[in-house]
């Protein structure tokens, strides 16, 4: 036990460890971690307003709000204010306002006692995700008619590198109750001059908040526009929204801009965490091995396997702490803490940790194959950079799991745990994906296949690399 603690202390205070941690902090600053966190996206996408409202007029106005994060999960504690200036139809009416705070379900109701038939309303939402303000006309309608406002249809989990764009629909019924028979239609329009349109789905809306995973694989390759239409029970349009396939798809690797855009768009932790693993592996094993400072230890009453295992543990323990700290920082500062269960946070930690351990094992293995510790670091860092910048990595596994607010829902939504998915043709799908970037939907593997394959590969490397390194350590100098 004292030997393990001694190795842990040695690795923690090794110059390479300290340099790595400083480098990681600098990189985190360069990446502006949190500006576009890969999990818990703030409200800086045009098609993600962050809140939705509908209203009903019955002599006064009743506004029903739903405030949500980048995954569509509810945000509690958001302050909503509705303001109406003086005047309007009745010039003598003074300015009025009302406000409310969202509960754990992300919902709030604001009542404005004013009977103008039409006037400008200003609505402000202040939440952990940011501040949004909308000003527009709100008119008197027949009692019982619920008018959808901005945000009724909102894309969530979309944008650069997101793999499963989802449409969130907020559609309360009369008096804020259950929806009164509306449905959501998704239509695809072919590129000009092809005039065809095709209905992809028509789904009854039964709950005030519903999410629809967009069936990307079913969309026509040449579709130029996707329409999302909220229809009432008579089939007339209540609200609509259009998107292009490109905006709904993954940004292809070769369409990512270099420089700042690349840094901001990529998965920061997916790169930073492997860097920490590489730094710790370098400090714990690669550097001592290449500089021969491991030799005095091998000459002591210990075995080669014992030395390797202790050094491995001495890197794994701080790695676990660093990954946990990264997740805590990401979520405490930028993420939608209110929308994710602790179990999901644990899964996110586990995904990053698995990735980090795979890189650590890789470094230990390389240390036995390459003489120079510097070369080990360069090769491992190159692989980490390639995976982080050009290939979605395991953090998206947990991002996928983060689509729903409960672990069971996440597991149900993501087919990652199906062994047949894990054994899927990852390489073939991946290259077909690379081979047809940006051409629509067809080249994209399913998120489950991609993530499952990556998970399988990562787990394989995480387990096999240190085992092979151990075998080499016992058989070769």
């Amino acid at each position, binding site marked *: 036990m004292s030997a393990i*603690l001694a190795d842990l202390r040695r690795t923690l205070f090794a110059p390479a460890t300290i340099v790595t941690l400083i480098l990681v902090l600098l990189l985190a600053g360069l990446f502006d971690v949190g500006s576009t966190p890969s999990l818990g996206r703030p409200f800086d996408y045009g098609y993600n307003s962050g809140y939705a409202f509908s209203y009903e007029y019955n002599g006064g106005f009743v506004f029903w709000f739903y405030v949500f994060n980048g995954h569509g999960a509810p945000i509690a504690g958001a302050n909503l204010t509705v303001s109406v200036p003086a005047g309007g139809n009745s010039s003598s009416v003074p300015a009025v306002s009302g406000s409310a705070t969202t509960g754990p379900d992300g919902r709030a109701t604001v009542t404005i006692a004013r009977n103008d038939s039409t006037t400008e309303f200003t609505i402000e939402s202040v939440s952990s995700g940011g501040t949004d303000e909308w000003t527009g006309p709100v008119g008197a309608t027949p009692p019982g008619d619920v008018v959808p406002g901005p945000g009724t249809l909102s894309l969530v989990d979309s944008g650069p590198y997101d793999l499963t764009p989802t449409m969130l629909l907020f559609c309360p019924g009369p008096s804020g109750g259950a929806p009164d028979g509306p449905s959501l239609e998704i239509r695809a329009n072919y590129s000009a001059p092809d005039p065809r349109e095709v209905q992809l789905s028509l789904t009854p809306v039964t709950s005030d908040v519903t999410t629809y995973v967009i069936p990307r694989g079913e969309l026509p390759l040449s579709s130029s526009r996707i329409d999302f239409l909220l229809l009432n029970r008579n089939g007339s349009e209540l609200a609509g929204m259009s998107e292009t396939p490109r905006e709904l798809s993954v940004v292809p690797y070769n369409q990512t801009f270099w420089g700042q855009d690349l840094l901001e768009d990529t998965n920061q932790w997916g790169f930073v965490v492997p860097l920490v693993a590489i730094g710790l592996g370098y400090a714990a094993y690669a550097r001592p091995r290449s500089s021969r400072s491991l030799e*005095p230890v091998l000459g002591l009453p210990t075995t080669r396997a014992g030395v390797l295992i202790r050094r491995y543990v001495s890197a794994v323990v701080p790695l676990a702490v660093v990954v946990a700290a990264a997740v805590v920082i990401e979520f405490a500062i930028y993420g939608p803490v209110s929308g994710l269960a602790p179990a999901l946070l644990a899964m996110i930690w586990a995904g990053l940790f698995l990735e980090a351990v795979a890189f650590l094992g890789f470094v230990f293995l390389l240390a036995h194959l390459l003489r120079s510790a510097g070369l080990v670091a360069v090769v491992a860092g190159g692989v980490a950079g390639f995976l982080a910048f050009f290939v979605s990595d395991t953090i998206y596994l947990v991002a996928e799991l983060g689509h729903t607010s409960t672990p069971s829902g996440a597991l149900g939504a993501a087919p990652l745990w199906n062994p047949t998915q894990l054994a899927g043709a990852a390489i073939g799908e991946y290259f077909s994906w690379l081979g047809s970037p940006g051409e629509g939907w067809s080249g994209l593997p399913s998120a489950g296949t991609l993530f499952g394959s990556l998970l399988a590969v990562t787990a394989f490397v995480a387990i096999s690399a240190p085992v092979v390194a151990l075998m080499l350590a016992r058989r070769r100098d």
Partner: protein
Amino acid sequence: MALEFQNVSKRFWPNRTPALRDLTLKVEPGEVLGLVGRNGAGKTTAIRIAAGVSLPGSGNVQVDGHPLDREKVAASRLLGWVPEESVHEESAKVEPLLRYYAAIVGDVEPARIGELLETWGLTQFRRRRVRTLSLGMRRRLSLIASELTQPKYLLLDEVFNGLDPEAVVTVRAWVRERRAAGCGLLLSSHNLRELAKFADRVAVLHEGRLLKVLDRAELHERPSRVVRVQVPGFDEAGLRVLERFGTPELVPGGALVRGEGVDAGGIAAALVHAGYVVQGLTREDDGLEELYLELVRGAT
């Protein structure tokens, strides 16, 4: 009970150069066994394999019956290794590094490190980083590390290289003290004369092969090849007296007599008989180098 090399062979990648070929050797407790050979003869490889730092290609090393390949921990508890080069972690500080080694060893009394630092004169350098130490101080650090296990066998690789004269004297005294305490020492050097001062036996290695193990008699009782005679006012007449013992040569303060098995006792008697005052008679050459060269020439 001994430190035994059992048919140990080793080749190095990538050109598969044989570094050791079927080495069989035994170091008894209380014995100093020298390992001599030119650069690349396999001395360091043999010591590194015995220390468990390098793996043999075939064969094994046993330490008091503990095979190094299967009972490494038990075997290494009986061993202490002093490498030729300092391979300690350069960024580490002296005392913390020794405490780290002690933690790996496992049963080192906390006060022992302080005692060893004091013994080897490193107390005032205990907070210094290894990279700031001189070669001699690094060697002392290695010596301290080798003593953490209180070893029964010591593996000393070119331990006198690069040391100042004072340190050489200190290490020599330590080697003698360890031998007197019953410790078996395997001591490598390319200097046979230096080894002969300590060693009970010397193993001659050449291109990885053990040529011969020289015993005490061969090391210390070889006939003289050169005898220096110190006689004030020595002259040509004196040289003629010495001619029957070898080939004499007049030098300041006396003469040198060269030849196979020069009879020093006979020289002294003859000179006294001839009326010379003999102040000194020393063997200039013990024949070790010539013996070594003969062995190597025979092998090649």
